C-alpha cells in the first residue's frame, strides 16, 4: 500500500537541500503529546470516584504505562533503528491514540481493566517508541550540536505535562458544567472523562502526524556546512567510530552511564514525587503550614517549568563544555544544593523554591543530555537502540526514588505532622546517591577500539546512510 510504504526507511531520506530545522519541530510534536503522561494526576480523583476504586488501583494505570515505556524503549530500540523515525512515530501515534480510545471505552463501560489495557499497556508502548523515535535522527542531523537537538526534543516531554494539565482541566469543565477544577474535592463525571480521553486521543494523533509527515533522515554523504567530524572527535570521550547496541551493553562505560542516569533521576524523582506536601511541611508552624495547598500546586507547576527549561538549556550547554563536565555539574552542584535544601531550605520560601527549581533543572538536563553522551561514546550507528536500553535506568529510578523518600518519611511520622527536619535523612541520602553517580561519571572511559564496527561490512540492520550522514566512518 502506498500509504504504508511511505513510512518505510528508504522513503524517508531527505532530498538535497532539505532543512534540518524541520526535524526538531517534528520531534517536538511527538514529545509534547506523549509528555501528557506526567499530567495524569489532573483526573486521578475523578477516576477514583467513577470506578469507586482505591488510590492504588488507579495509580496502577500510570505504573503500567511507565513500565511499558521502559520495556518498549529497551526492546523496540533496534526495531526503531532498522525501520526509521517515520514508521516509529506512526506506530507511536497509533498506540498512544488507541490507548486513549480503549481507555475511554473502559471508562464508559466501567471496566477498569480496559483502562489498564488501553492507557497503561497500549499507551505505554506508544510512550516508549515515541520517546526514542526522533533521538537517533536528530543526532544524525545535528552532529555539530547533538545536545541542542536532543535537548529541544526531550524538552517537549517536560512541556507536554504543562500543556496537558491545564488543557485537561478546561476540557473536563467544558464536558461537565458541575466540575470545578479549582475545588480540590470536585470530581468530573464519567461522561466528561470519556470526552476528555476521546478528545486527547484524536487530538494527539493529529499533532503527532505533523511529526510523521516532516521527519526525514539525512541523505548519504550529508553533513552540515562547515562541519568537520575530526574536530568533534578530538574532544575527550568523543568517537567517530560506531558500536552496536549488543556490544554497547557489554562495555563498562554503558553501565557506568546507566548508574549516572539512575542516580540523577533517583534524586530528582525524590523531590518531584513529594513536591506538594514537601513545601507545606518545610514551612509548617505547629499543625498548620504557612504554604496553602493551592500555593503548593503552583510550586509544582514552577518545578515543571524548571524541569523543561533545564532540558534545553543544560543539554545545549553540554555542546560547549562537554558531556562529562555537564554531568559533574548536575551531580556535584546537585549534592551541594541538596545539602543546602536540607540545612537552610526552611529559612525562606523563595530560597526553597530556587534550590528545588535548580535541582529539577539538573534532573531534566540529565535526561536531555544522555543521548548526546551516548553518541559521543558509541557513535550514531545504533544510538537510538542503545538509548532505549539505557532508559531502564529511568524505570529503576522511578521505583528507587520514591521508595527512599517515602521510607524515611514513614519512619519520621504521619503526613500532615512532618516538618523540615523529617526530610533531612532522605535529602542527605540523596546527596550520597548523587556522590555515587559523580564517581561513576568520572570512571567513564572511551569504548575500546575492538568493539567498534569496521567501516565496511556493517550489520544488515544498520541504515546504510548512517555512515555517510555522520561524514566519517573512520575511527
Amino acid at each position, binding site marked *: 500500500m502506498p*500509504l504504508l510504504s511511505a513510512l518505510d526507511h528508504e522513503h524517508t531520506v531527505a532530498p538535497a537541500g532539505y532543512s534540518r530545522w524541520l526535524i526538531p519541530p517534528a520531534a517536538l510534536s511527538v514529545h509534547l503529546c506523549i509528555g501528557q503522561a506526567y499530567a495524569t494526576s489532573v483526573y486521578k480523583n475523578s477516576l477514583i470516584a467513577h470506578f469507586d476504586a482505591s488510590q492504588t488501583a488507579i495509580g496502577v494505570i500510570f505504573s503500567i504505562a511507565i513500565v511499558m515505556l521502559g520495556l518498549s524503549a529497551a526492546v523496540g530500540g533496534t526495531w526503531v533503528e532498522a525501520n526509521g523515525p517515520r514508521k516509529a512515530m506512526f506506530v507511536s501515534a497509533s498506540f498512544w491514540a488507541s490507548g486513549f480510545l480503549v481507555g475511554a471505552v473502559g471508562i464508559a463501560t466501567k471496566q477498569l481493566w480496559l483502562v489498564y489495557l488501553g492507557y497503561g499497556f497500549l499507551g505505554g508502548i506508544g510512550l516508549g517508541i515515541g520517546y526514542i523515535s526522533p533521538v537517533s535522527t536528530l543526532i544524525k542531523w545535528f552532529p555539530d550540536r547533538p545536545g541542542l537537538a536532543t535537548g529541544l526534543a526531550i524538552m517537549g516531554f517536560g512541556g507536554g505535562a504543562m500543556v496537558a494539565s491545564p488543557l485537561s482541566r478546561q476540557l473536563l469543565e467544558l464536558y461537565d458544567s458541575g466540575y470545578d477544577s479549582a475545588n480540590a474535592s470536585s470530581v468530573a463525571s464519567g461522561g466528561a472523562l470519556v470526552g476528555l480521553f476521546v478528545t486527547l486521543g484524536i487530538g494527539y494523533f493529529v499533532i503527532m502526524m505533523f511529526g510523521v509527515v516532516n521527519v526525514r533522515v539525512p541523505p548519504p554523504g550529508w553533513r552540515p556546512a562547515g562541519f568537520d567530524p575530526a574536530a568533534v572527535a578530538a574532544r575527550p570521550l568523543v568517537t567517530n567510530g560506531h558500536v552496536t547496541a549488543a556490544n554497547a551493553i557489554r562495555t563498562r562505560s554503558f553501565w557506568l552511564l546507566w548508574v549516572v542516569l539512575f542516580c540523577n533521576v533517583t534524586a530528582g524523582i525524590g523531590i518531584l514525587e513529594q513536591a506538594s506536601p514537601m513545601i507545606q511541611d518545610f514551612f509548617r508552624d505547629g499543625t498548620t503550614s504557612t504554604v496553602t495547598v493551592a500555593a503548593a500546586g*503552583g510550586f509544582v507547576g514552577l518545578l515543571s517549568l524548571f524541569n523543561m527549561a533545564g532540558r534545553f538549556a543544560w543539554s545545549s550547554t553540554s555542546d560547549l563544555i562537554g558531556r562529562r563536565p555537564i554531568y559533574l555539574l548536575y551531580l556535584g552542584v546537585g549534592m551541594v544544593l541538596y545539602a543546602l535544601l536540607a540545612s537552610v531550605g526552611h529559612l525562606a520560601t523563595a530560597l526553597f523554591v530556587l534550590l528545588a527549581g535548580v535541582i529539577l533543572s539538573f534532573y531534566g538536563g540529565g535526561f536531555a543530555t544522555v543521548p548526546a553522551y551516548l553518541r559521543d561514546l558509541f557513535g550514531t550507528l545504533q544510538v537510538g537502540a542503545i538509548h532505549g536500553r539505557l532508559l531502564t535506568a529511568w524505570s529503576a529510578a522511578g521505583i528507587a526514588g520514591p521508595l527512599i523518600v517515602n521510607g524515611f518519611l514513614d519512619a519520621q511520622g504521619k503526613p500532615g505532622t512532618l516538618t523540615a527536619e523529617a526530610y533531612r535523612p532522605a535529602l542527605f541520602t540523596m546527596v550520597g546517591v548523587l556522590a555515587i553517580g559523580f564517581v561513576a561519571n568520572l570512571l567513564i572511559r572511551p569504548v575500546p577500539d575492538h568493539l567498534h564496527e569496521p567501516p565496511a561490512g556493517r550489520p544488515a540492520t544498520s541504515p546504510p546512510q548512517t555512515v555517510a550522514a555522520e561524514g566519517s566512518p573512520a575511527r
Partner: protein
Amino acid sequence: MTEPQPPENQTARLWVSWLLVAALLGYGVTQTVITAVKLFTH
C-alpha cells in the same frame, strides 16, 4: 503521505511546524505561570 518536497516549498512548512510547537509550548508556559502567580499571591 507525499514524497519529499523541493526545498523552495519549505518556508511555509517551517513556519507551520514551528508555530504549532510554539503555540503548544506557549499555552503550557502561560497557563503554568498564571496558575503559579495566582496561587503564590493569594
